[in-house]
């Protein structure tokens, strides 16, 4: 059984496509078998809603009179890049406020814009013949901006680490507070609903894939930073640790604060919960087999964050079903678990994307260019060198 992208899009356009979330598809495949499920279903939707630090927005403010070449820019006291053209900027989600620190950062500015709130823009410039103004202090709303688009260099990690702490003191990390002496374990993945865990070898997802980005229709722009297709994989070909990543682009004006939520991690910094949903066409039975995998079939590797080095010791592997049960067992000891990625919101995203496809006839794009495949590039470390050693 094979289906082409054209056939599936024709069925979406005519309103005949059968669309299911990854969880619904797994139930059908368990009841009727993968082959029958693959014949019945045209598209499977996925969703994830976790902290994704590498996110941000490009903004264009328009020109004041007289105009200014903004060199030093803040939005609600959060610094934005002054390294682009006169009134263009990039605001990164993790940038902390100069006045409030990590309690309010770039992600909070973006959430405020999404909520329709006015944001205070302050900038200074050198003053040139074509841009004579040297200072500006005003308020902008999302509606006022010429362009506002999310460009997230790394979202949607294909699997992630499970974090524990063997040390004697609590650790404050991007995976939350890790209590000392293995008193808890945290993890961050939508598991069976996660986009890249459903397409482990990037057959359906590539550059140009149309998808759900923070509530807006958007695209996979490129491979994400630190994309690592060479991560160790299990018998189903699914990575067992952090592997592939994706970069996304989408119109902020069509996005929603329901699917982009600012976050502050205690003694770590600012981040943003970003909602991503990707539709996957059921092209053949091989793809259907990975779409049918459940939390019991997907594993993640447990790492000891008590060892504060680039390579942390791996302490074993657990399934997402075990993680979701609230307790795992590592080296014979029971450890309570807690997630950092929202399953209820991931489910809402997969359901919303399903509605886009069935009600709004949201069609699918085959990849314009494939992502780097297993066996190609990996992730390189940063070596610390002196000038003499170059």
């Amino acid at each position, binding site marked *: 059984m094979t289906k082409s992208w054209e056939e599936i899009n024709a069925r979406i356009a005519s309103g005949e496509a059968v669309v299911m979330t990854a969880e619904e598809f797994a139930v059908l495949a368990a009841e009727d078998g993968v082959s029958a499920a693959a014949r019945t279903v045209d598209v499977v939707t996925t969703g994830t809603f976790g902290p994704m630090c590498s996110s941000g927005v490009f903004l264009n403010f328009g020109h004041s009179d007289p105009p200014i070449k903004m060199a030093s820019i803040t939005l609600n006291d959060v610094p934005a890049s002054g390294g682009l053209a006169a009134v263009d900027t990039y605001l990164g989600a993790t940038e902390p406020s100069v006045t409030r620190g990590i*309690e309010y950062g770039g992600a909070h500015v973006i959430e405020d814009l999404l909520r329709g709130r006015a944001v205070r823009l302050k900038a200074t410039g050198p003053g040139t013949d074509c841009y004579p103004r040297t200072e500006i202090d005003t308020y902008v709303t999302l509606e006022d901006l010429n362009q506002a688009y999310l460009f997230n260099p790394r979202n949607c990690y294909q699997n992630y680490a499970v974090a524990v702490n063997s040390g004697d003191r609590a650790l404050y990390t991007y995976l*939350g*507070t890790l209590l000392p002496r293995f008193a808890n374990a945290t993890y961050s993945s939508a598991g069976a609903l996660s986009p890249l865990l459903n397409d482990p070898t990037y057959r359906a997802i590539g550059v140009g894939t149309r998808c759900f980005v923070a509530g807006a229709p958007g695209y996979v722009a490129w491979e994400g930073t630190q994309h690592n297709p060479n991560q160790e994989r299990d018998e189903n070909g699914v990575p067992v640790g952090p592997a592939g990543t994706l970069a996304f682009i989408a119109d902020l004006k069509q996005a929603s604060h329901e699917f982009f939520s600012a976050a502050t991690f205690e003694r770590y910094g600012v981040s943003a919960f970003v909602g991503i949903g990707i539709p996957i066409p059921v092209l053949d039975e091989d793809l259907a087999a990975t779409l049918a995998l459940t939390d019991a079939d997907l594993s993640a590797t447990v790492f000891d964050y008590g060892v504060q080095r680039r390579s942390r010791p791996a302490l074993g592997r657990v399934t997402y079903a075990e993680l979701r049960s609230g307790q795992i067992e590592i080296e014979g000891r029971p450890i*309570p678990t*807690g997630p*950092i990625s*929202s399953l*209820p919101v991931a489910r809402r995203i997969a359901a919303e994307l399903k509605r886009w496809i069935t009600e709004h006839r949201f069609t699918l794009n085959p990849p314009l260019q494939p992502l780097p495949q297993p066996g190609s590039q990996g992730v390189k470390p940063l070596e610390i060198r002196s000038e003499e050693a170059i």
Partner: protein
Amino acid sequence: MARRRLDLTFPPRQATKAITYHLVRDFDLVPNILRAQIQPAQEGRMLLELTGSAEQFEAGVAFLRAEGIGVREAASDICLDDERCVVCGLCTAVCRPGALTLAEGTAELVFDKDKCVYCEACVVACPRRAVTLRF
């Protein structure tokens, strides 16, 4: 046996008296101080869990009131802001008594007030600042 949680308000002049000692010795109550802010010459607050017979509990409360201490049942001290909460579940990872859990299946957040010891670990851990403690 009854177990009740009380929110006590100490007037400034009372703040140094050994209240819990009297509750134990005179009323055979088992006190468990969940949270306290008591400083000399300032109004103090204490969240106190008392275990004992219903009769002794009433007598103990009457003693506290006679001492000029404000006594009320501890109400919803931990407040979850549903508007801000994104149900990530991170608070459940730091809740040692297991008062905050995710429901099996739906993964929605469940708060069992009886298990809460007001340690505030969730208040600090919540990345959305959706948990606050009213005290």
